[in-house]
């Protein structure tokens, strides 16, 4: 049994020929998750239900759906009916949703099997998944290291080849940064591409669901499933259905690529800059042009992000008050006491910090001074990206400034976690699609990711470049194989 290391085409063929059944994949997934228990990728496993579902699917025709019967992991801030959804927080650790997020409905309609709910930073607030109430997940390449965050559990389970597919969410890099740290492919689609209905909101104007997979093709396939307009989400874009795999395999000759100087400045370690430089050369050798460009506002993104994300979060998280769902303090004296005790005990330190800062930022005249001002600079930043995309098809740069750091690194500097995402946050600010692709390893053999940014709704072009590089680089990205080799 090593189905889960195979490509999707191979698995699909075996399923179609009835050499294997969905239950074999499900069982293998749970065996691996069990073996890798210390990776702590999951908060809740959906074992019974997944097995039941696999058995039900046996009666169904496999057909041409490449995703049929395949296990998928879902980040724990995405609502799954009858399956506990905690947001890695004490305040929701008993929360069993009564409805499915739109993306979950789509997964079910496509006969995929939900294996479990993945670990994350509490309410997606963090960049190392260490703010999780359930402890941090570990990096499959080195268990002393973080897997990044906030979608750290989804990144871990893909990297460790426990399942083929995972969903993450990305508010300020939370798909791409852990993807880079764990050597997988993670895509944050254009804001509005995927419905946010049923995603526990962190920062509504930035949140976006995206696919996390071991390779580019599988990533595009999963985006095919989850993308599309949704009447339940007014911010979802009314775009016609498209096949995100359609440009995969196409030549990149003549493609024009921009590489902002800021992304290659000394905020990034030398080994990462070197890998990006090598990639630049490879692209040029293959007929693409890669130009260094100056871009305004990139260095302002983190500040804008802090204002917008914390402001929105302080309001979004107000609903967790112990009245209607989730954790509630015992025997409160009065309503004030219920609010205070529930929220004091229910939320972790980082979440409380962000709620407090966010509340301050929106307080009185501050909303005008900070939030509204940030929104207006954000528009300028979007215009700056628009300017670049007049001349270029794509923008590239490193995804992260360093490779994954130690789980034991101090957490006492609250701005550090934001700086981990300095290169990926501008994309959320501008609502653009961005993908992280593994392009090599650092000196400690920790993965390095390339960040590919597209113009709005140009995910297919991102996949085109990513798949080209993936094929050219042909890296061994399975840490299990790596273990065997060592």
């Amino acid at each position, binding site marked *: 049994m090593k189905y889960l290391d195979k490509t999707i085409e191979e698995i699909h063929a075996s399923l179609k020929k009835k050499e294997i059944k969905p239950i074999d994949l499900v069982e293998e997934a749970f065996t691996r998750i069990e073996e890798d228990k210390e990776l702590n990728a999951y908060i809740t496993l959906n074992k019974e239900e997944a097995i039941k579902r696999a058995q039900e699917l046996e009666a169904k025709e496999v057909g041409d759906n490449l995703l049929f019967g395949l296990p998928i992991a879902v980040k724990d801030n*995405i*609502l799954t009916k009858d399956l506990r*959804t905690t*947001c890695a927080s004490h305040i*929701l650790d008993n*929360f069993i*949703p*009564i*409805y499915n*997020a739109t993306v979950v409905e789509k997964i079910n309609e496509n006969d995929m099997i939900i294996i479990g709910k993945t670990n994350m930073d509490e309410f997606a607030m963090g960049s190392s998944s260490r703010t999780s109430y359930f402890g941090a997940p570990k990096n499959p390449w080195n268990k002393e290291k973080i897997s990044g965050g906030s979608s750290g559990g989804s990144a871990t389970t893909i990297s460790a080849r426990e399942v083929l597919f995972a969903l993450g969410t990305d508010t300020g890099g939370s798909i791409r940064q852990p993807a880079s740290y764990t050597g997988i492919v993670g895509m944050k689609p254009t804001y509005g591409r995927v419905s*946010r*209905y*049923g*995603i*526990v*909101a962190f*920062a*509504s*104007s930035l949140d976006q669901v995206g696919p996390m997979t071991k390779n580019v093709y599988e990533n595009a396939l999963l985006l095919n499933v989850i993308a599309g307009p949704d*009447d*339940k*989400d*007014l*911010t979802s874009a009314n775009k016609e259905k498209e096949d995100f795999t359609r440009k995969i395999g196409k030549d990149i000759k003549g493609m024009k690529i921009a590489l902002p100087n800021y992304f290659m400045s000394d905020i990034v370690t030398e080994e990462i800059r070197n890998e990006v430089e090598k990639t630049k050369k490879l692209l040029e050798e293959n007929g693409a042009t890669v130009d260094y460009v100056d871009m305004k506002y990139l260095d302002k993104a983190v500040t804008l992000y802090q204002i917008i994300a914390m*402001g*929105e979060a*302080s*309001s979004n998280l*107000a*609903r*967790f*008050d112990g*009245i*209607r*769902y989730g954790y509630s303090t015992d025997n409160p004296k009065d*309503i004030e006491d219920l*609010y205070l005790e529930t929220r004091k005990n229910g939320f972790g330190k980082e979440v409380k910090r962000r709620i407090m800062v966010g*509340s301050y930022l*929106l*307080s*009185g005249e501050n*909303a005008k001074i900070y*939030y*509204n001002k940030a*929104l207006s600079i954000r528009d300028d930043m979007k215009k700056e990206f628009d300017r670049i995309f007049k001349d270029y098809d794509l923008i590239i740069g490193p995804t992260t400034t360093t490779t994954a750091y130690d789980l034991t690194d101090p957490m006492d500097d609250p701005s550090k976690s934001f700086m981990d995402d300095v290169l990926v946050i501008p994309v959320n600010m501008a609502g653009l699609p961005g993908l992280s692709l593994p392009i090599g390893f650092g000196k400690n053999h920790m993965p390095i990711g390339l960040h590919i940014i597209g113009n709005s709704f140009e995910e297919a072009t991102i996949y085109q470049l990513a798949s080209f590089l993936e094929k050219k680089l042909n890296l061994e990205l399975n840490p299990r194989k790596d273990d065997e080799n060592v």
Partner: protein
Amino acid sequence: MSNYIPTVGIEVHCELKTNTKIFSNSINGYGQMANSLTNVVDLGYPGTLPTLNKEVLNLAIKAALVLNCKIRRQMHFDRKNYFYPDNPKNYQITQAETPIGYDGYVEIEVNGKKKKIEIEEMHIEEDTCKSTHRGTKTLLDFNRAGVPLIEIVTKPCMESGEEAKLYLEKLRELLFYSDVSDCKIEEGSMRADANVSIRKKESDPFGTKAEIKNIGSISNVKLSIDKEIERQANLYDNGETFLPQTRRFDSKLNDTVLMRVKETGNDYRYFPEPDIPYVYVTEEQIDEVRKTIPMLPEERRKKYIELGISEVNAKKLVGHRTLSDYLNELLEEKIDFKTAANLLLGDISAYLNKNETEITKTKLTKEKFMELTNNISDGTLTSKNLKEILDMVMESDKSIAEIVKEAGIQNITDNSAITDMIKKIINENPESVADYKAGKDRAIKYLMGQVMKESKGSINPSMAMDILKEELK
């Protein structure tokens, strides 16, 4: 009490008459089992997002039009953040920065003089859930959560409880007649808060403000404002001051009671609602909505008076929406509107009240009503006849002619027969005849009564009166 100039501003919350809620597809209904009209969106369940009911926008545009407001073409929603158990998300979606309507007015008549009550702004927002306190427990009913509201805020431009009352009556009439809201204060679909302050001179700054919350009726708004003016005046007269405060009207005490003192301004941490994109209103949309506005009360009254209906009856008709709507469909017809109004407000209203029904639910078609009106006005039918056949008129499909025939009504329309009858009465009542001739007007009424009695009500009274007068000469 010295003389002070009171300043009053009114805020009205009005529930819009939509089928579904503003941000979800739950039914917008009243009086249903608690929490039966709710879904995950209304409950502020994690992961839920608002959708926007188009009906709400159209009704708000309509309200803005009838309140003479300017209409914003590009607007957004804002979040008003505060913790309260009746507020499921602990923020309310409202329009703080870009209210849909602004700079409007409602015209009232105070002591015979017209006055424009200026409307500062009118915005759309969601209602909260309803909380009921039972001992130490509070029960929450989310049926009301997410019901669409418009909030209408006047400038501080009224000077008395009476003006506030007239404004609210006018406002209610306008919103009710334009089908924006059913405006039932007792069901909470219209709620008023009043801001009251007083000062010595026009040139003085506004005095300290007290807000009176959720007053249960329009007459209590007047009463509570007058009481509050008096209270503030007494304090100032005694050299006392007070802090800005929120009060409520206690209908048992017939006075306002302190709820809380406002120490600092509330901090609602408003910011643009990121879940709802900008909303754009087009000229076409406004024109479409304008077409759906029925004839408004003021115009109706004017029209009725033009058509010969008395001022009193014109007012009464407008106060009775279904009758007014019924009559409005006949405005182009050539009928005696005075008689038509009398009929509607008299026997027909009595019938409708007795049977607890509405005119549109009876068999009184427009044709039948016109036939009836004509018969009464030309004397073919008497009011006594009408009383006899009214049930049939309202309940059967038959025409008036058929009903009259079946009821065997044979009115004496032959002049000579009437003259004979009158001669007989004159002969039988010489004293009354003498009284009449001596100038006692009352005597003729007596004689007329005798004529009607003799004829069993089957003659046309005005015709009989003419003959009687002639015979008495």
